[in-house]
């Protein structure tokens, strides 16, 4: 074979080669750097999807014991809930939120503490139906990054963007060589014909 007989394999154009190189390094660096963040976001996401089954959120089955018109006042229900968790005398600062469920006949009073303790109280009788921690509240904060502070939400945004870029670059790295090869084969066939 002489020098003039040498087969010249067509190489992709320089911009495409550069794009593939960028895709490769973006895929590698973003994938590795955001591993920890994406791992925690994925794990907390799965746990939140199954929060009832895993007991992270109490599921209190209850029927209304009286018409909604006969419900106790919010103030009384708050006091009952806070006494149940040993926070008497009641102050509004102890309550994170109240979730009234007229169809189930109860109110969920969430206390502001590390465990996000929730007290479920019957709307009409004031009977305490359940007291327990709401694990999903903390997991939601960890999922969004809020557990470490308000600005940490940006970390979960960055992880989401990194994931999208990793997906796009992964598809590019997977499909671009196939498209290029197919195009080269078609070109060769046309030249031969």
């Amino acid at each position, binding site marked *: 074979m002489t020098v003039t007989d040498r087969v010249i394999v067509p190489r992709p154009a320089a911009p495409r080669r550069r794009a593939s190189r960028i895709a490769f390094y973006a895929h590698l660096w973003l994938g590795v750097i955001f591993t920890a963040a994406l791992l925690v976001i994925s*794990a907390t996401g799965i746990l939140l999807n199954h929060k009832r089954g895993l007991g992270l959120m109490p599921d209190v089955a209850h029927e209304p014991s009286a018409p909604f018109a006969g419900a106790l006042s919010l103030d009384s229900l708050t006091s009952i809930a806070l006494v149940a968790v040993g926070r008497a005398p009641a102050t509004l600062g102890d309550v994170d939120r109240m979730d009234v469920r007229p169809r189930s006949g109860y109110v969920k009073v969430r206390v502001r503490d590390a465990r996000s303790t929730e007290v479920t109280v019957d709307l009409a009788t004031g009977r305490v139906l359940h007291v327990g921690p709401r694990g999903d509240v903390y997991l939601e904060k960890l999922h969004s990054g809020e557990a*470490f502070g308000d600005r940490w939400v940006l970390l979960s945004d960055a992880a989401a963007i990194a994931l999208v870029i990793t997906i796009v670059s992964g598809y590019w790295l997977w499909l671009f060589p196939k498209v290029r090869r197919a195009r080269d084969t078609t070109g060769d066939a046309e030249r031969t014909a």
Partner: protein
Amino acid sequence: MTIGSVALMLGIFGVPMVLLWAGHRLRRRSARWHAAFWGGIAGHLVALVVGSVAAMAPAEQWAPSDVWRGALGLWSFLVLPAMGAAIGVVRAGRFGRD
């Protein structure tokens, strides 16, 4: 930002960057470098599991008194890879490689 948060950021972003840099053209590096790299990787993988579990269990907000949780959840991402790399270097030296 607390010192624990800085350690966490360095652990989850700084350490992988250093490992990526250290893993570049690894075949051309010395045996000691290899050992440090693989030790760091092992430490990082252990930290991923230990740190993630410490962050999630129990599912409640951390308190300043949670010493073990803080150590594992914030510092393990930085300390364990460093320990792994150090162990790798020591082992490589002990077995007379490079």
